[in-house]
């Protein structure tokens, strides 16, 4: 399912002393099957974009096209639910949305709201719980007896069970330890590939953006600062650093090397392996390695 934001503007609290412009002239195309990362500081508009992706917020100007539906400020719309069925959002700290007596009921909650039968929802719950790396026994437990990490996974399962075409992730690994982080990110990547989903990741982690995304959008003060492939984005790290954003460690390290060696590598490396390859080549040129 294609998603497209066209000249989207969003103002919070219109006509109050707190009114402020959160998004200005934002245009982003997300063709079906894309893994898009949105990066930027807190307050850059990332989270506001995210809420436009399933019509929780409507643009105050411009339009958002989700599949064959158009969301604008103008009219009262009825079919928002059909949009939300197709676009699942994993909010930051999603464990805060758990409320049912059992894990199973909580996971079934979303699908059943969208008209899935109970038996089908239960089947999906079993599937989803395995997908997030938990065992089936957990389904009968109360979500509030679980550890923080497990609760996070259950909440994610609740979104997966909706079987959305598009999955939107808002800092899905915030507060997790390194192992948990990696497991969750790898899982979403697998899903993305296996089910041919569109994935939109809102993150602070340049590493994750570089590692997983096909496309990156850099937001700054409510506007699109830059968009392109990871390699394009990190090719000129200076601009990003001026905004006070990090660049991936690999890119930073490559820059340091290039400065010290007064050379320019053939490309901007976004993985450790690529960079090792380049360094290896550099040493080979001098002749001490074969």
């Amino acid at each position, binding site marked *: 399912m294609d998603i497209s934001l066209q000249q989207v503007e969003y103002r919070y609290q219109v006509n109050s002393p707190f009114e402020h412009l959160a998004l200005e002239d934002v245009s982003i195309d997300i063709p079906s099957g894309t893994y898009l990362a949105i990066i930027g*500081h*807190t307050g850059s508009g990332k989270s506001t974009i995210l809420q436009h992706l399933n019509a929780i917020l409507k643009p105050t100007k411009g339009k958002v096209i989700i599949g064959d539906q158009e969301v604008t400020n103008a009219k009262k719309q009825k079919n928002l639910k059909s949009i939300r069925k197709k676009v699942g959002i994993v909010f930051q700290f999603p464990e805060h949305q758990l409320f049912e007596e059992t894990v199973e009921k909580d996971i079934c909650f979303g699908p059943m709201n969208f008209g899935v039968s109970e038996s089908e929802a239960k089947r999906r719950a079993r599937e989803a719980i395995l997908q997030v790396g938990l065992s089936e026994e957990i389904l009968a437990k109360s979500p509030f007896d679980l550890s*923080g990490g497990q609760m996070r996974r259950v909440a994610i399962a609740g979104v997966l069970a909706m079987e959305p075409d598009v999955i939107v992730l808002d800092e899905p690994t915030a507060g997790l330890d*390194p*192992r948990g982080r990696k497991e969750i990110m790898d899982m979403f990547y697998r899903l993305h590939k296996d089910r041919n989903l569109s994935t939109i990741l809102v993150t602070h982690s340049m590493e994750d953006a570089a590692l997983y995304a096909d496309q990156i959008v850099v937001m700054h003060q409510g506007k699109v600062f830059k968009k392109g492939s990871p390699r394009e984005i990190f090719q000129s790290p200076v601009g990003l650093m001026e905004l006070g954003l990090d660049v991936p460690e690999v890119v930073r*390290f490559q820059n340091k*090397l290039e400065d*010290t*060696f007064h050379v320019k590598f053939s490309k901007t490396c976004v993985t450790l392996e690529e960079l090792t390859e380049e*360094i290896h080549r550099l040493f080979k040129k001098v002749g001490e390695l074969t």
Partner: protein
Amino acid sequence: MTDAVVRIENVSFKYDGQSDFALNNVSLHINDGEWLAIVGHNGSGKSTMAKLLNGLQTPSEGSIQICGIELTEETVWDTRKQIGMVFQNPDNQFVGSTVQDDVAFGLENNGVPREEMVQRVKTSLEKVKMDKFLDQEPHHLSGGQKQRVAIAGVLALRPKIILLDEATSMLDPRGREEVLQTIRELKESNQMTVVSITHDLEEAAKADRIIVMNKGQLYREGTPEEIFQMDEELVELGLDIPFPVKMSKLLKSKGIPINKHYLTEEELVAQLWTSHSNK
């Protein structure tokens, strides 16, 4: 060897209704003026340690001494004066309605006279660079700013030790950097003892000493250099390896002449440069 400000001797602890020990026969000393990082994955027992040090839980076995005082129910309020805590969630430790009220909260509790309070609030907020935000309310502050205010609240009480219990884990990179920078500065100017409980190895890399916790036990202790040589073992413990170490390892496996795993990018670049130009 400097004096130990904290002595934990053979401490074990079990939460009510749990069969496993959250801490199992842990002994460790924290030295005056050092920065100690306690690392481990979630559930390794590191946060339980924080609760014990602050007297929020009492060990089932063993003893804890803080600045020479044995931690018991009677002395807990005295030992709390020696250890300032900064917790994980920036919102849930902000008691005051504004920045200055929050910093003053601990002083009020300890009955500090008003004139002195005003002075201390001012100087501690200057130290964390939040003195421009005196009347700001918490919901208008970023996570990093709230944590800095929490640090100021600790500083105002002038404890010997500041304990950061995953204080950066809920922050964005900018907030995290702010807080770490603040701690580094404090460490240099105030000679405080810093204990940071974390799973962020970048944070731990800045410490003088690291303790790795696993399954409620003290798994390993050493300087950051020593700890990061553990390599894959760290990954197995649910932790991560810092980038320069990962890079060094990969390069080495490719046959590029590197004699050890470097902890900083600068060292690694320098090493590469030397070996490159020597041949």
